Protein backbone atom coordinates (compact mmCIF):
# COMPACT_ATOMS: atom_id res chain seq x y z
CA UNK A 1 0.00 0.00 0.00
CA UNK A 2 2.79 2.30 0.84
CA UNK A 3 4.76 2.30 -2.32
CA UNK A 4 2.09 3.48 -4.82
CA UNK A 5 1.14 6.16 -2.40
CA UNK A 6 4.62 7.42 -2.12
CA UNK A 7 5.19 7.16 -5.82
CA UNK A 8 2.09 9.23 -6.52
CA UNK A 9 3.27 11.81 -4.09
CA UNK A 10 6.66 12.04 -5.64
CA UNK A 11 5.10 12.12 -9.05
CA UNK A 12 3.06 15.10 -8.12
CA UNK A 13 6.05 16.72 -6.57
CA UNK A 14 8.48 16.29 -9.38
CA UNK A 15 6.11 16.22 -12.29
CA UNK A 16 8.05 13.46 -13.98
CA UNK A 17 6.23 10.35 -15.12
CA UNK A 18 9.26 8.13 -14.64
CA UNK A 19 9.60 8.03 -10.90
CA UNK A 20 8.78 4.39 -10.62
CA UNK A 21 10.43 2.99 -13.70
CA UNK A 22 12.28 0.21 -11.95
CA UNK A 23 9.58 -0.22 -9.32
CA UNK A 24 6.90 -0.56 -12.01
CA UNK A 25 6.42 -4.23 -11.26
CA UNK A 26 4.22 -3.45 -8.32
CA UNK A 27 2.93 -0.11 -9.65
CA UNK A 28 -0.13 0.43 -11.92
CA UNK A 29 0.24 -1.12 -15.34
CA UNK A 30 -1.42 1.67 -17.29
CA UNK A 31 1.64 3.77 -17.39
CA UNK A 32 3.96 1.25 -18.84
CA UNK A 33 3.19 1.26 -22.58
CA UNK A 34 3.53 5.00 -22.66
CA UNK A 35 6.93 5.02 -21.02
CA UNK A 36 8.12 2.13 -23.12
CA UNK A 37 7.16 4.01 -26.24
CA UNK A 38 8.98 7.05 -25.03
CA UNK A 39 11.97 4.92 -24.21
CA UNK A 40 11.98 3.42 -27.68
CA UNK A 41 11.69 6.78 -29.30
CA UNK A 42 14.57 8.02 -27.22
CA UNK A 43 16.68 5.02 -28.10
CA UNK A 44 15.99 5.64 -31.77
CA UNK A 45 17.03 9.21 -31.38
CA UNK A 46 20.21 8.18 -29.65
CA UNK A 47 20.93 5.76 -32.45
CA UNK A 48 20.45 8.40 -35.09
CA UNK A 49 22.70 10.73 -33.23
CA UNK A 50 25.37 8.11 -32.85
CA UNK A 51 25.19 7.41 -36.56
CA UNK A 52 25.63 11.04 -37.38
CA UNK A 53 28.53 11.19 -35.01
CA UNK A 54 30.18 8.16 -36.58
CA UNK A 55 29.80 9.72 -39.98
CA UNK A 56 31.44 12.87 -38.77
CA UNK A 57 34.27 10.91 -37.32
CA UNK A 58 34.83 9.14 -40.58
CA UNK A 59 35.00 12.44 -42.32
CA UNK A 60 37.65 13.61 -39.90
CA UNK A 61 39.53 10.38 -40.44
CA UNK A 62 39.67 9.71 -36.73
CA UNK A 63 40.17 5.99 -36.23
CA UNK A 64 40.07 5.74 -32.43
CA UNK A 65 36.40 5.96 -31.64
CA UNK A 66 36.47 4.58 -28.12
CA UNK A 67 38.36 7.60 -26.76
CA UNK A 68 35.24 9.58 -27.14
CA UNK A 69 33.14 7.52 -24.78
CA UNK A 70 33.92 9.44 -21.64
CA UNK A 71 32.79 12.65 -23.11
CA UNK A 72 29.80 11.58 -25.11
CA UNK A 73 28.60 8.39 -23.51
CA UNK A 74 24.92 9.30 -23.99
CA UNK A 75 25.20 8.93 -27.71
CA UNK A 76 27.04 5.64 -27.65
CA UNK A 77 25.32 2.62 -29.15
CA UNK A 78 23.97 0.40 -26.39
CA UNK A 79 25.86 -2.81 -26.15
CA UNK A 80 23.74 -5.25 -24.25
CA UNK A 81 24.95 -7.40 -21.39
CA UNK A 82 28.58 -6.97 -22.14
CA UNK A 83 31.06 -4.40 -21.19
CA UNK A 84 33.79 -3.21 -23.35
CA UNK A 85 37.33 -4.07 -22.45
CA UNK A 86 38.10 -0.47 -21.72
CA UNK A 87 35.19 -0.29 -19.32
CA UNK A 88 36.36 -3.34 -17.43
CA UNK A 89 39.75 -1.81 -16.93
CA UNK A 90 38.32 1.32 -15.48
CA UNK A 91 35.86 0.86 -12.59
CA UNK A 92 34.69 4.45 -12.82
CA UNK A 93 33.72 4.10 -16.48
CA UNK A 94 30.03 4.19 -17.14
CA UNK A 95 28.42 0.85 -17.95
CA UNK A 96 26.58 0.75 -21.27
CA UNK A 97 22.94 1.81 -21.30
CA UNK A 98 20.61 -1.11 -20.87
CA UNK A 99 22.92 -3.19 -18.71
CA UNK A 100 21.83 -4.26 -15.26
CA UNK A 101 23.64 -2.72 -12.32
CA UNK A 102 23.30 -2.92 -8.59
CA UNK A 103 22.37 0.29 -6.89
CA UNK A 104 25.10 1.56 -4.58
CA UNK A 105 22.52 2.70 -2.03
CA UNK A 106 19.69 0.20 -1.83
CA UNK A 107 21.51 -2.69 -3.56
CA UNK A 108 18.57 -3.40 -5.82
CA UNK A 109 19.20 -4.24 -9.41
CA UNK A 110 18.20 -1.65 -11.92
CA UNK A 111 18.67 -0.89 -15.63
CA UNK A 112 21.22 1.69 -16.67
CA UNK A 113 19.66 4.52 -18.57
CA UNK A 114 21.12 7.68 -19.90
CA UNK A 115 19.74 9.40 -16.81
CA UNK A 116 21.44 7.17 -14.28
CA UNK A 117 23.65 9.15 -11.95
CA UNK A 118 26.84 8.12 -10.19
CA UNK A 119 26.81 7.52 -6.43
CA UNK A 120 28.44 10.15 -4.34
CA UNK A 121 30.72 9.10 -2.79
CA UNK A 122 31.48 6.44 -5.39
CA UNK A 123 32.01 3.90 -6.64
CA UNK A 124 28.82 2.60 -8.18
CA UNK A 125 25.57 3.95 -9.51
CA UNK A 126 22.27 4.99 -8.03
CA UNK A 127 18.91 3.64 -9.07
CA UNK A 128 16.31 6.16 -10.04
CA UNK A 129 14.54 6.16 -6.68
CA UNK A 130 17.74 6.58 -4.69
CA UNK A 131 18.92 9.33 -6.95
CA UNK A 132 15.72 11.23 -6.33
CA UNK A 133 15.94 10.53 -2.61
CA UNK A 134 19.43 12.01 -2.59
CA UNK A 135 17.98 15.19 -4.00
CA UNK A 136 19.47 14.88 -7.47
CA UNK A 137 17.21 15.69 -10.36
CA UNK A 138 18.14 13.04 -12.91
CA UNK A 139 16.41 14.91 -15.73
CA UNK A 140 18.29 18.07 -15.16
CA UNK A 141 19.54 19.07 -18.51
CA UNK A 142 23.23 19.46 -18.79
CA UNK A 143 23.64 22.98 -20.02
CA UNK A 144 24.86 22.79 -23.60
CA UNK A 145 28.48 23.76 -23.78
CA UNK A 146 28.49 27.23 -25.12
CA UNK A 147 30.97 27.89 -27.79
CA UNK A 148 32.57 31.24 -27.30
CA UNK A 149 32.19 33.46 -30.26
CA UNK A 150 35.64 33.99 -31.79
CA UNK A 151 35.27 37.73 -31.42
CA UNK A 152 35.03 37.37 -27.66
CA UNK A 153 38.34 35.63 -27.39
CA UNK A 154 40.22 38.68 -28.57
CA UNK A 155 39.72 41.63 -26.28
CA UNK A 156 39.58 44.71 -28.42
CA UNK A 157 40.56 47.82 -26.52
CA UNK A 158 39.41 50.74 -28.57
CA UNK A 159 40.70 53.22 -26.02
CA UNK A 160 42.19 52.91 -22.61
CA UNK A 161 40.93 54.96 -19.76
CA UNK A 162 44.33 55.46 -18.25
CA UNK A 163 43.87 58.49 -16.07
CA UNK A 164 40.39 58.90 -14.74
CA UNK A 165 41.38 61.63 -12.37
CA UNK A 166 42.37 64.77 -14.24
CA UNK A 167 45.46 66.67 -13.15
CA UNK A 168 45.02 69.71 -10.98
CA UNK A 169 46.52 71.90 -13.74
CA UNK A 170 43.96 70.49 -16.15
CA UNK A 171 41.09 71.25 -13.76
CA UNK A 172 42.39 74.77 -13.14
CA UNK A 173 42.65 75.47 -16.85
CA UNK A 174 39.08 74.29 -17.23
CA UNK A 175 37.89 76.56 -14.45
CA UNK A 176 39.81 79.49 -15.91
CA UNK A 177 38.36 78.85 -19.35
CA UNK A 178 34.86 78.73 -17.88
CA UNK A 179 35.29 82.06 -16.16
CA UNK A 180 37.11 83.86 -18.95
CA UNK A 181 34.44 86.46 -19.42
CA UNK A 182 34.42 87.22 -15.74
CA UNK A 183 37.69 89.07 -15.27
CA UNK A 184 36.71 90.09 -11.74
CA UNK A 185 36.34 86.50 -10.67
CA UNK A 186 39.81 85.50 -11.79
CA UNK A 187 41.42 88.54 -10.27
CA UNK A 188 44.45 90.48 -11.46
CA UNK A 189 47.69 88.63 -11.26
CA UNK A 190 50.21 90.78 -13.05
CA UNK A 191 52.18 90.61 -16.27
CA UNK A 192 54.97 88.36 -15.05
CA UNK A 193 52.54 85.79 -13.79
CA UNK A 194 50.52 86.00 -16.98
CA UNK A 195 53.56 84.87 -18.91
CA UNK A 196 54.09 82.15 -16.36
CA UNK A 197 50.47 81.02 -16.73
CA UNK A 198 50.83 81.03 -20.49
CA UNK A 199 53.78 78.71 -20.08
CA UNK A 200 51.88 76.37 -17.79
CA UNK A 201 48.91 76.20 -20.13
CA UNK A 202 51.22 75.53 -23.07
CA UNK A 203 52.93 72.80 -21.08
CA UNK A 204 49.57 71.15 -20.56
CA UNK A 205 49.01 71.59 -24.32
CA UNK A 206 45.64 73.09 -23.71
CA UNK A 207 45.81 76.60 -25.08
CA UNK A 208 42.74 77.08 -27.22
CA UNK A 209 41.12 79.88 -29.14
CA UNK A 210 38.86 80.51 -26.13
CA UNK A 211 41.29 80.64 -23.25
CA UNK A 212 44.02 82.38 -25.23
CA UNK A 213 41.82 85.48 -25.00
CA UNK A 214 42.85 85.74 -21.37
CA UNK A 215 46.25 86.89 -22.56
CA UNK A 216 45.10 89.38 -25.18
CA UNK A 217 45.16 93.03 -24.43
CA UNK A 218 45.13 96.22 -26.47
CA UNK A 219 48.12 97.41 -24.48
CA UNK A 220 50.27 94.36 -25.21
CA UNK A 221 53.45 95.16 -27.08
CA UNK A 222 54.92 91.72 -26.85
CA UNK A 223 53.20 88.38 -26.94
CA UNK A 224 54.69 84.93 -26.72
CA UNK A 225 52.60 81.85 -27.24
CA UNK A 226 54.55 78.73 -26.48
CA UNK A 227 52.13 76.33 -28.03
CA UNK A 228 49.85 77.54 -30.78
CA UNK A 229 48.97 74.03 -31.96
CA UNK A 230 45.26 74.50 -31.42
CA UNK A 231 44.99 78.00 -32.82
CA UNK A 232 43.34 77.88 -36.22
CA UNK A 233 43.87 80.66 -38.78
CA UNK A 234 40.70 82.40 -37.55
CA UNK A 235 42.03 82.45 -34.02
CA UNK A 236 45.33 83.85 -35.26
CA UNK A 237 43.49 86.64 -37.10
CA UNK A 238 41.60 87.37 -33.87
CA UNK A 239 44.92 87.46 -32.06
CA UNK A 240 46.12 90.23 -34.36
CA UNK A 241 42.88 92.18 -34.06
CA UNK A 242 42.80 91.99 -30.26
CA UNK A 243 46.45 92.94 -29.81
CA UNK A 244 46.75 95.78 -32.35
CA UNK A 245 49.79 97.34 -30.71
CA UNK A 246 52.07 94.34 -30.82
CA UNK A 247 55.67 95.07 -31.66
CA UNK A 248 56.99 91.61 -31.01
CA UNK A 249 55.18 88.37 -31.65
CA UNK A 250 56.41 84.86 -31.06
CA UNK A 251 54.40 81.77 -31.86
CA UNK A 252 55.75 78.28 -31.24
CA UNK A 253 54.23 75.27 -32.94
CA UNK A 254 52.06 77.40 -35.16
CA UNK A 255 51.52 74.61 -37.67
CA UNK A 256 47.99 75.70 -38.54
CA UNK A 257 48.94 79.18 -39.63
CA UNK A 258 48.50 79.74 -43.33
CA UNK A 259 48.30 82.43 -45.95
CA UNK A 260 45.10 84.13 -44.83
CA UNK A 261 46.38 84.71 -41.30
CA UNK A 262 49.71 86.09 -42.49
CA UNK A 263 47.92 88.36 -44.95
CA UNK A 264 45.59 89.52 -42.17
CA UNK A 265 48.63 90.37 -40.07
CA UNK A 266 49.93 92.47 -42.94
CA UNK A 267 47.07 94.88 -42.40
CA UNK A 268 46.34 94.58 -38.71
CA UNK A 269 49.63 94.80 -36.88
CA UNK A 270 50.91 98.23 -37.84
CA UNK A 271 53.71 98.36 -35.26
CA UNK A 272 55.11 94.88 -35.69
CA UNK A 273 58.90 94.85 -35.67
CA UNK A 274 59.81 91.39 -34.60
CA UNK A 275 58.25 88.11 -35.57
CA UNK A 276 59.34 84.67 -34.51
CA UNK A 277 57.56 81.58 -35.83
CA UNK A 278 58.21 77.91 -35.27
CA UNK A 279 56.73 75.70 -37.93
CA UNK A 280 54.68 77.87 -40.29
CA UNK A 281 54.52 75.05 -42.84
CA UNK A 282 51.43 76.11 -44.72
CA UNK A 283 52.31 79.67 -45.54
CA UNK A 284 52.79 80.05 -49.28
CA UNK A 285 55.10 82.34 -51.21
CA UNK A 286 52.54 85.07 -52.12
CA UNK A 287 51.52 85.45 -48.47
CA UNK A 288 55.11 85.91 -47.36
CA UNK A 289 55.76 88.45 -50.09
CA UNK A 290 52.65 90.41 -49.21
CA UNK A 291 53.66 90.38 -45.55
CA UNK A 292 57.14 91.74 -46.35
CA UNK A 293 55.70 94.41 -48.60
CA UNK A 294 53.28 95.62 -45.94
CA UNK A 295 55.77 95.68 -43.09
CA UNK A 296 58.60 97.13 -45.15
CA UNK A 297 61.50 98.85 -43.41
CA UNK A 298 59.96 98.69 -39.93
CA UNK A 299 60.61 94.95 -39.67
CA UNK A 300 63.86 94.38 -37.83
CA UNK A 301 63.66 90.75 -36.84
CA UNK A 302 62.46 87.85 -38.90
CA UNK A 303 62.99 84.51 -37.21
CA UNK A 304 61.50 81.44 -38.85
CA UNK A 305 62.13 77.78 -38.21
CA UNK A 306 60.85 75.05 -40.51
CA UNK A 307 59.15 76.43 -43.55
CA UNK A 308 59.43 74.19 -46.59
CA UNK A 309 57.84 76.72 -48.96
CA UNK A 310 60.14 79.62 -48.20
CA UNK A 311 62.01 79.97 -51.49
CA UNK A 312 64.40 82.28 -53.24
CA UNK A 313 61.69 84.74 -54.33
CA UNK A 314 60.73 85.14 -50.66
CA UNK A 315 64.28 85.96 -49.65
CA UNK A 316 64.56 88.41 -52.57
CA UNK A 317 61.40 90.15 -51.43
CA UNK A 318 62.50 90.13 -47.77
CA UNK A 319 65.84 91.71 -48.62
CA UNK A 320 64.42 94.43 -50.84
CA UNK A 321 61.38 95.27 -48.70
CA UNK A 322 62.95 95.04 -45.26
CA UNK A 323 66.48 96.39 -45.51
CA UNK A 324 66.65 97.24 -41.79
CA UNK A 325 66.68 93.66 -40.62
CA UNK A 326 69.08 93.07 -37.74
CA UNK A 327 68.02 89.56 -36.82
CA UNK A 328 67.50 86.81 -39.36
CA UNK A 329 66.82 83.19 -38.64
CA UNK A 330 66.11 80.79 -41.46
CA UNK A 331 66.52 77.54 -39.63
CA UNK A 332 65.56 74.19 -41.11
CA UNK A 333 64.43 75.76 -44.34
CA UNK A 334 64.07 73.01 -46.91
CA UNK A 335 64.94 75.08 -49.96
CA UNK A 336 67.92 76.88 -48.42
CA UNK A 337 70.89 76.86 -50.77
CA UNK A 338 74.03 78.76 -51.64
CA UNK A 339 71.95 80.87 -54.02
CA UNK A 340 70.15 82.45 -51.01
CA UNK A 341 73.37 83.84 -49.61
CA UNK A 342 74.11 86.65 -52.11
CA UNK A 343 70.69 88.09 -51.23
CA UNK A 344 71.27 87.84 -47.50
CA UNK A 345 74.60 89.55 -48.10
CA UNK A 346 72.67 92.76 -48.83
CA UNK A 347 71.37 92.95 -45.25
CA UNK A 348 74.25 95.02 -43.96
CA UNK A 349 72.80 95.66 -40.46
CA UNK A 350 72.55 92.03 -39.42
CA UNK A 351 73.76 91.26 -35.92
CA UNK A 352 72.07 87.91 -35.56
CA UNK A 353 72.26 85.23 -38.24
CA UNK A 354 71.05 81.68 -37.98
CA UNK A 355 71.17 79.48 -41.08
CA UNK A 356 71.38 76.15 -39.31
CA UNK A 357 70.10 72.78 -40.43
CA UNK A 358 69.30 73.32 -44.08
CA UNK A 359 68.31 70.30 -46.11
CA UNK A 360 71.45 70.58 -48.24
CA UNK A 361 74.52 71.99 -46.59
CA UNK A 362 75.81 75.41 -47.58
CA UNK A 363 79.28 75.48 -49.11
CA UNK A 364 82.49 76.94 -47.71
CA UNK A 365 83.00 79.56 -50.40
CA UNK A 366 79.43 80.88 -50.38
CA UNK A 367 79.55 81.33 -46.60
CA UNK A 368 82.94 83.03 -46.76
CA UNK A 369 81.57 85.49 -49.31
CA UNK A 370 78.53 86.14 -47.12
CA UNK A 371 80.64 86.79 -44.02
CA UNK A 372 82.92 89.06 -46.02
CA UNK A 373 79.87 91.17 -46.85
CA UNK A 374 77.97 91.26 -43.55
CA UNK A 375 80.31 89.83 -40.91
CA UNK A 376 81.23 93.25 -39.54
CA UNK A 377 78.28 93.67 -37.18
CA UNK A 378 77.46 90.04 -36.44
CA UNK A 379 77.39 89.14 -32.76
CA UNK A 380 75.51 85.87 -33.12
CA UNK A 381 76.32 83.29 -35.76
CA UNK A 382 74.75 79.86 -36.00
CA UNK A 383 75.68 77.60 -38.89
CA UNK A 384 75.05 74.28 -37.21
CA UNK A 385 74.61 71.09 -39.19
CA UNK A 386 76.00 72.36 -42.46
CA UNK A 387 77.97 69.23 -43.11
CA UNK A 388 80.09 70.65 -45.94
CA UNK A 389 81.55 73.50 -43.91
CA UNK A 390 85.17 72.85 -43.01
CA UNK A 391 88.20 74.57 -41.51
CA UNK A 392 88.34 76.71 -44.65
CA UNK A 393 85.25 78.72 -43.74
CA UNK A 394 86.56 79.28 -40.21
CA UNK A 395 89.93 80.46 -41.42
CA UNK A 396 88.83 82.48 -44.44
CA UNK A 397 85.43 83.67 -43.21
CA UNK A 398 84.97 83.85 -39.46
CA UNK A 399 88.59 84.72 -38.70
CA UNK A 400 88.98 87.84 -40.83
CA UNK A 401 85.40 89.12 -41.14
CA UNK A 402 83.67 88.82 -37.74
CA UNK A 403 85.28 91.35 -35.40
CA UNK A 404 82.48 91.58 -32.81
CA UNK A 405 81.19 88.03 -32.65
CA UNK A 406 80.26 86.84 -29.13
CA UNK A 407 78.12 83.80 -29.84
CA UNK A 408 79.43 81.09 -32.11
CA UNK A 409 77.31 78.01 -32.64
CA UNK A 410 78.77 75.41 -34.95
CA UNK A 411 77.16 72.22 -33.86
CA UNK A 412 77.50 69.07 -35.93
CA UNK A 413 80.17 70.19 -38.39
CA UNK A 414 81.89 66.90 -39.00
CA UNK A 415 84.59 68.31 -41.23
CA UNK A 416 86.15 70.59 -38.63
CA UNK A 417 89.50 69.21 -37.45
CA UNK A 418 91.20 69.48 -34.11
CA UNK A 419 94.23 71.14 -35.64
CA UNK A 420 92.23 73.56 -37.77
CA UNK A 421 90.06 74.77 -34.91
CA UNK A 422 92.99 75.13 -32.55
CA UNK A 423 94.83 77.13 -35.21
CA UNK A 424 91.74 79.29 -35.73
CA UNK A 425 91.43 80.18 -32.05
CA UNK A 426 95.13 80.99 -31.82
CA UNK A 427 94.82 83.45 -34.66
CA UNK A 428 91.35 84.86 -33.83
CA UNK A 429 91.15 88.38 -32.39
CA UNK A 430 90.78 88.40 -28.62
CA UNK A 431 88.38 91.28 -28.11
CA UNK A 432 85.50 90.98 -27.62
CA UNK A 433 85.77 87.43 -26.34
CA UNK A 434 83.22 84.74 -27.00
CA UNK A 435 80.52 84.40 -24.38
CA UNK A 436 78.68 81.45 -25.80
CA UNK A 437 80.57 78.73 -27.66
CA UNK A 438 78.79 75.65 -28.93
CA UNK A 439 80.88 73.29 -31.02
CA UNK A 440 79.02 70.20 -29.97
CA UNK A 441 78.97 67.03 -32.04
CA UNK A 442 82.03 67.97 -34.01
CA UNK A 443 83.50 64.55 -33.51
CA UNK A 444 87.03 65.30 -34.64
CA UNK A 445 87.60 68.02 -32.09
CA UNK A 446 89.55 67.19 -28.95
CA UNK A 447 92.16 68.54 -26.55
CA UNK A 448 93.91 70.99 -28.88
CA UNK A 449 90.69 72.69 -29.95
CA UNK A 450 89.52 72.96 -26.33
CA UNK A 451 92.82 74.42 -25.19
CA UNK A 452 92.65 76.90 -28.08
CA UNK A 453 89.10 77.91 -27.22
CA UNK A 454 89.77 78.28 -23.50
CA UNK A 455 92.95 80.27 -24.06
CA UNK A 456 91.08 82.50 -26.47
CA UNK A 457 87.99 83.42 -24.48
CA UNK A 458 87.83 81.20 -21.43
CA UNK A 459 87.77 84.14 -19.07
CA UNK A 460 84.38 85.36 -20.31
CA UNK A 461 82.67 82.18 -21.43
CA UNK A 462 79.21 81.80 -19.95
CA UNK A 463 78.05 78.82 -21.94
CA UNK A 464 80.26 76.06 -23.25
CA UNK A 465 79.09 73.01 -25.15
CA UNK A 466 81.66 70.42 -26.14
CA UNK A 467 79.23 67.53 -26.40
CA UNK A 468 80.81 64.53 -28.16
CA UNK A 469 84.42 65.68 -28.12
CA UNK A 470 85.12 62.10 -27.25
CA UNK A 471 88.91 62.11 -27.40
CA UNK A 472 89.44 65.16 -25.20
CA UNK A 473 91.94 64.24 -22.51
CA UNK A 474 91.16 64.32 -18.84
CA UNK A 475 93.94 66.85 -18.22
CA UNK A 476 92.41 69.30 -20.66
CA UNK A 477 88.96 68.89 -19.20
CA UNK A 478 90.43 69.65 -15.79
CA UNK A 479 91.60 73.03 -17.08
CA UNK A 480 88.07 74.22 -17.98
CA UNK A 481 87.27 75.34 -14.45
CA UNK A 482 90.43 77.35 -13.95
CA UNK A 483 90.37 78.99 -17.36
CA UNK A 484 86.63 79.66 -17.60
CA UNK A 485 85.52 80.55 -14.10
CA UNK A 486 82.42 82.46 -15.20
CA UNK A 487 80.72 79.50 -16.77
CA UNK A 488 77.04 79.11 -16.06
CA UNK A 489 76.11 76.26 -18.38
CA UNK A 490 78.48 73.45 -19.36
CA UNK A 491 77.82 70.41 -21.49
CA UNK A 492 80.61 67.82 -21.44
CA UNK A 493 78.44 64.89 -22.50
CA UNK A 494 80.16 62.03 -24.31
CA UNK A 495 83.61 63.31 -23.40
CA UNK A 496 84.72 59.86 -22.40
CA UNK A 497 87.48 60.96 -20.08
CA UNK A 498 85.34 63.21 -17.93
CA UNK A 499 85.19 61.86 -14.39
CA UNK A 500 84.17 62.81 -10.88
CA UNK A 501 87.22 65.03 -10.53
CA UNK A 502 86.31 67.07 -13.60
CA UNK A 503 82.84 67.60 -12.13
CA UNK A 504 84.37 68.54 -8.80
CA UNK A 505 86.74 71.03 -10.40
CA UNK A 506 83.82 72.67 -12.21
CA UNK A 507 81.74 72.88 -9.04
CA UNK A 508 84.67 74.36 -7.11
CA UNK A 509 86.00 76.64 -9.81
CA UNK A 510 82.86 78.16 -11.38
CA UNK A 511 80.94 80.07 -8.76
CA UNK A 512 77.89 80.92 -10.88
CA UNK A 513 77.41 77.49 -12.42
CA UNK A 514 73.79 76.49 -13.03
CA UNK A 515 74.15 73.10 -14.62
CA UNK A 516 76.54 70.49 -15.91
CA UNK A 517 75.44 67.98 -18.49
CA UNK A 518 77.45 64.80 -18.55
CA UNK A 519 75.42 62.26 -20.46
CA UNK A 520 77.44 59.26 -21.55
CA UNK A 521 80.39 59.98 -19.26
CA UNK A 522 80.94 56.55 -17.76
CA UNK A 523 83.56 57.74 -15.32
CA UNK A 524 81.20 60.15 -13.63
CA UNK A 525 79.77 58.01 -10.87
CA UNK A 526 77.24 58.18 -8.11
CA UNK A 527 80.00 59.44 -5.87
CA UNK A 528 80.45 62.66 -7.88
CA UNK A 529 80.14 65.73 -5.68
CA UNK A 530 77.01 67.86 -5.57
CA UNK A 531 76.49 71.52 -4.88
CA UNK A 532 73.43 73.50 -3.92
CA UNK A 533 72.01 75.32 -6.93
CA UNK A 534 73.84 73.27 -9.55
CA UNK A 535 72.03 70.60 -11.51
CA UNK A 536 74.05 67.70 -12.80
CA UNK A 537 72.26 65.95 -15.62
CA UNK A 538 72.96 62.59 -17.15
CA UNK A 539 74.87 60.69 -14.47
CA UNK A 540 74.24 57.11 -15.49
CA UNK A 541 73.98 55.65 -12.00
CA UNK A 542 71.24 58.18 -11.21
CA UNK A 543 69.23 56.96 -14.13
CA UNK A 544 69.53 53.36 -13.06
CA UNK A 545 68.29 53.97 -9.53
Amino acid at each position, binding site marked *: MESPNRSRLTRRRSGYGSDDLDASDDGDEGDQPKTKKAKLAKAALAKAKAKAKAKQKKKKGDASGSDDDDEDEYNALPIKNSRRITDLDDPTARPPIGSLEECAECHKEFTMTRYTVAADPGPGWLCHACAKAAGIDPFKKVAPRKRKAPTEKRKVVSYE*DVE*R*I*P*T*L*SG*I*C*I*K*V*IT*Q*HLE*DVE*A*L*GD*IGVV*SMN*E*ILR*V*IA*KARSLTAENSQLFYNVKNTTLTIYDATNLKPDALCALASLNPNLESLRLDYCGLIEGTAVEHWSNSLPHLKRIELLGPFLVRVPAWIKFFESKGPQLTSFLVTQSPRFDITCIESLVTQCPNLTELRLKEIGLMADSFLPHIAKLSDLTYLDLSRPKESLGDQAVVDLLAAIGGKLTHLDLSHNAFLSDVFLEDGVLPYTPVLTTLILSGLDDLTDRGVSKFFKAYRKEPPLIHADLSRCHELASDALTGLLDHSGRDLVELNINSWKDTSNDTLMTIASKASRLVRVDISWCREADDFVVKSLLDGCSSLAYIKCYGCNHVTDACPKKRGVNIYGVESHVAS
Partner: protein
Amino acid sequence: MANIQDKSESEWVRVLSEDGWTFIVPRKVAVASGTLKNTLSTGFAEAEAATCHVPHRGAIVEKVMEYLSYKTLYESAGPKEDIPEFSERIQPELALELLMAADYLET
Protein backbone atom coordinates in the same frame (compact mmCIF):
# COMPACT_ATOMS: atom_id res chain seq x y z
CA MET B 1 71.02 55.89 8.74
CA ALA B 2 68.51 53.84 10.68
CA ASN B 3 67.06 57.07 11.96
CA ILE B 4 66.42 58.35 8.46
CA GLN B 5 64.87 55.06 7.55
CA ASP B 6 62.43 55.32 10.43
CA LYS B 7 61.48 58.84 9.55
CA SER B 8 60.86 58.05 5.92
CA GLU B 9 58.61 55.25 7.03
CA SER B 10 56.59 57.51 9.29
CA GLU B 11 53.10 57.99 8.10
CA TRP B 12 52.62 61.74 8.31
CA VAL B 13 54.50 64.60 6.72
CA ARG B 14 54.41 68.32 7.23
CA VAL B 15 53.80 70.77 4.40
CA LEU B 16 54.54 74.42 5.05
CA SER B 17 53.15 77.32 3.07
CA GLU B 18 55.16 80.48 2.50
CA ASP B 19 53.01 82.46 4.95
CA GLY B 20 53.53 80.04 7.77
CA TRP B 21 50.57 77.65 7.58
CA THR B 22 51.31 74.05 8.39
CA PHE B 23 49.47 71.14 6.91
CA ILE B 24 50.01 67.69 8.32
CA VAL B 25 49.01 65.12 5.76
CA PRO B 26 49.52 61.39 5.32
CA ARG B 27 52.66 60.59 3.37
CA LYS B 28 50.56 58.65 0.90
CA VAL B 29 48.69 61.86 0.07
CA ALA B 30 51.79 64.05 -0.18
CA VAL B 31 53.61 61.76 -2.60
CA ALA B 32 50.76 62.02 -5.08
CA SER B 33 52.58 65.21 -6.08
CA GLY B 34 55.68 64.58 -8.17
CA THR B 35 57.62 67.43 -6.61
CA LEU B 36 56.79 66.48 -3.04
CA LYS B 37 57.57 62.86 -3.80
CA ASN B 38 61.03 63.81 -5.04
CA THR B 39 61.67 66.10 -2.10
CA LEU B 40 60.63 63.46 0.36
CA SER B 41 62.72 60.76 -1.25
CA THR B 42 66.30 60.02 -0.39
CA GLY B 43 69.01 62.30 0.77
CA PHE B 44 67.52 65.76 1.23
CA ALA B 45 67.07 67.64 4.48
CA GLU B 46 63.33 67.75 3.75
CA ALA B 47 63.23 63.97 3.68
CA GLU B 48 64.98 63.73 7.01
CA ALA B 49 62.59 66.12 8.70
CA ALA B 50 59.57 64.94 6.67
CA THR B 51 58.83 68.59 6.04
CA CYS B 52 58.33 70.36 2.69
CA HIS B 53 58.09 74.02 1.87
CA VAL B 54 55.72 75.09 -0.86
CA PRO B 55 56.23 78.65 -2.04
CA HIS B 56 52.55 79.55 -2.18
CA ARG B 57 50.13 81.04 0.29
CA GLY B 58 48.10 78.99 2.74
CA ALA B 59 44.78 79.12 0.91
CA ILE B 60 46.41 77.71 -2.22
CA VAL B 61 48.38 75.02 -0.42
CA GLU B 62 45.21 73.99 1.40
CA LYS B 63 43.42 73.54 -1.90
CA VAL B 64 46.32 71.56 -3.32
CA MET B 65 46.27 69.27 -0.30
CA GLU B 66 42.54 68.87 -0.80
CA TYR B 67 43.16 67.82 -4.39
CA LEU B 68 45.90 65.39 -3.39
CA SER B 69 43.57 63.74 -0.87
CA TYR B 70 40.87 63.58 -3.54
CA LYS B 71 43.33 62.02 -5.94
CA THR B 72 44.58 59.37 -3.52
CA LEU B 73 41.01 58.57 -2.51
CA TYR B 74 39.69 58.03 -6.02
CA GLU B 75 42.82 56.82 -7.76
CA SER B 76 41.93 53.18 -7.26
CA ALA B 77 38.22 53.65 -7.97
CA GLY B 78 36.70 51.00 -10.18
CA PRO B 79 35.46 51.85 -13.65
CA LYS B 80 31.83 51.84 -12.50
CA GLU B 81 32.35 54.04 -9.49
CA ASP B 82 31.34 57.66 -9.74
CA ILE B 83 34.07 60.20 -9.19
CA PRO B 84 32.86 63.64 -8.15
CA GLU B 85 34.14 66.60 -10.15
CA PHE B 86 36.89 68.46 -8.35
CA SER B 87 36.38 71.58 -10.44
CA GLU B 88 33.28 72.39 -8.41
CA ARG B 89 35.47 72.89 -5.38
CA ILE B 90 37.74 75.46 -7.01
CA GLN B 91 36.77 79.05 -6.50
CA PRO B 92 37.53 80.92 -9.73
CA GLU B 93 39.53 83.57 -7.89
CA LEU B 94 41.96 80.87 -6.79
CA ALA B 95 42.23 79.23 -10.21
CA LEU B 96 45.17 81.19 -11.62
CA GLU B 97 47.34 80.90 -8.53
CA LEU B 98 46.32 77.30 -8.09
CA LEU B 99 47.37 76.58 -11.65
CA MET B 100 50.86 77.85 -10.93
CA ALA B 101 51.06 75.87 -7.70
CA ALA B 102 49.83 72.79 -9.54
CA ASP B 103 52.54 73.23 -12.13
CA TYR B 104 55.18 73.64 -9.44
CA LEU B 105 54.01 70.58 -7.57
CA GLU B 106 53.56 68.45 -10.69
CA THR B 107 50.04 67.47 -9.85
